[in-house]
């Protein structure tokens, strides 16, 4: 864990800066959207968190794969460390989205595909964490959660399409989609980018810190086990 020590404070600082700049910029210095009014400001929290919620899970899948193939302990612990962060991001996305729904759709919650698929993602996070908590032996837990994570991803994707099939919804199109006509003007664009950067960095920093914690906790466990037999 050598290299992470110096990186940790910097990434936190950078994340903080980006978030403050992006959010302040977005909140105070952007005009209201002509049709969404002031609620467009929610986008600066909503989109980044939503994106990172998904990316956190993807990162967990990758880490799980590394663990299963290379049996590299740190990656397993990193996956474990990332889960709670992913949960919080998912919650933020759900919450801001829900609140956004009030002015947009006149309801705090609508069973709209993307909302719903995030709800499902949330459930997957819950199950994943619960499984980690439930198993005594850390290596067994790592193996089992890895398998769950991979199988779960497949079903998460399936669910996403199922949900579309179930209810063709009223959600916004993708912001960052590279389609020709910019569907969101630069005024909103740049602060949004800064916020996204901020969330990415925050995620990175948090996972670093939590992984270090997990490693240390595991080391304590090992040392105590050894001490017990001495």
């Amino acid at each position: 864990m050598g290299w992470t020590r110096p990186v940790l404070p910097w990434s936190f600082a950078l994340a903080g800066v980006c978030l403050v700049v992006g959010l302040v910029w977005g909140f105070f210095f952007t005009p209201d959207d002509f049709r969404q009014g002031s609620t467009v400001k929610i986008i600066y929290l909503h989109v980044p968190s939503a994106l990172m919620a998904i990316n956190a899970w993807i990162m967990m899948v990758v880490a799980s794969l590394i663990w299963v193939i290379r049996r590299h302990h740190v990656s397993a612990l990193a996956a474990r460390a990332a889960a709670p962060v992913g949960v919080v991001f998912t919650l933020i996305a759900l919450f801001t989205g829900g609140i956004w729904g009030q002015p947009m759709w006149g309801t705090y919650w609508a069973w709209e595909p993307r909302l719903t698929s995030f709800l499902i993602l949330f459930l997957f996070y819950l199950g994943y964490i619960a499984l980690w908590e439930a198993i005594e032996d850390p290596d067994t837990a790592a193996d089992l959660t890895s398998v769950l994570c991979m199988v779960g991803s497949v079903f998460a994707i399936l669910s996403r399409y199922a949900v579309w099939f179930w209810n063709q919804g009223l959600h916004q199109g993708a912001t960052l989609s590279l389609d020709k006509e910019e569907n969101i003007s630069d005024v909103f664009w740049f602060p949004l980018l800064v916020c996204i950067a901020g969330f990415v960095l925050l995620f990175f920093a948090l996972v670093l810190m939590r992984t270090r914690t997990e490693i240390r906790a595991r080391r304590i466990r090992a040392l105590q086990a050894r001490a017990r037999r001495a």
Partner: protein
Amino acid sequence: MLRVRNLGCARGGVPVLTDVSFEVAAGQAIILRGPNGVGKTTLLRTLAGLQPPIEGEIDFPEEEGAYASHADGIKTALTVTENLKFWADVHGAALPATILETFDLSDLRDRLGGTLSAGQKRRLGLARLGVIGRKVLFLDEPTVSLDRFSVKLFADWLQDTHLAAGGVAVIATHIDLGLAAPELDLTPFKSAADANGGSDEAFL
């Protein structure tokens, strides 16, 4: 028939035994001794392939090992015969005609597993070994709660049937089976407190 070289095994991520080596020739048995908690069960589970060793090698003919412990897979809702029949089928073997006599289960033939006394259950568990026809047996305290007579019964079966047919047995027990077999005390192989290996090694 069974050769173990510099075997090390761990339990709960902690190395328990290191550098265990022994050989058992066909028709031979070996008895594992050692105080409670020295690692007999762990060693047997490792030999049987239920858990991976942390070092060293184990070799015996493929598909010939069988592990038996307190939990001997008896279905309380199946009769004695049904229990045995099932294991015979799984191993693609036929039920030896004499097996019930050998383990003194004839009168209990149609009893449900759940209605057996501790020792009767144990006998049923041991009879399983006579059914599956595996050559290399790993037995963890096979005679728990057996009376003297049954212990003798079991020892005789092992001697005259299993070993006589060129089988091998590794037995962990605290009592005297009255079996002419070399003993291996595991105490000297106990891992040092700072021994490495085990899943925690990466963190030490």
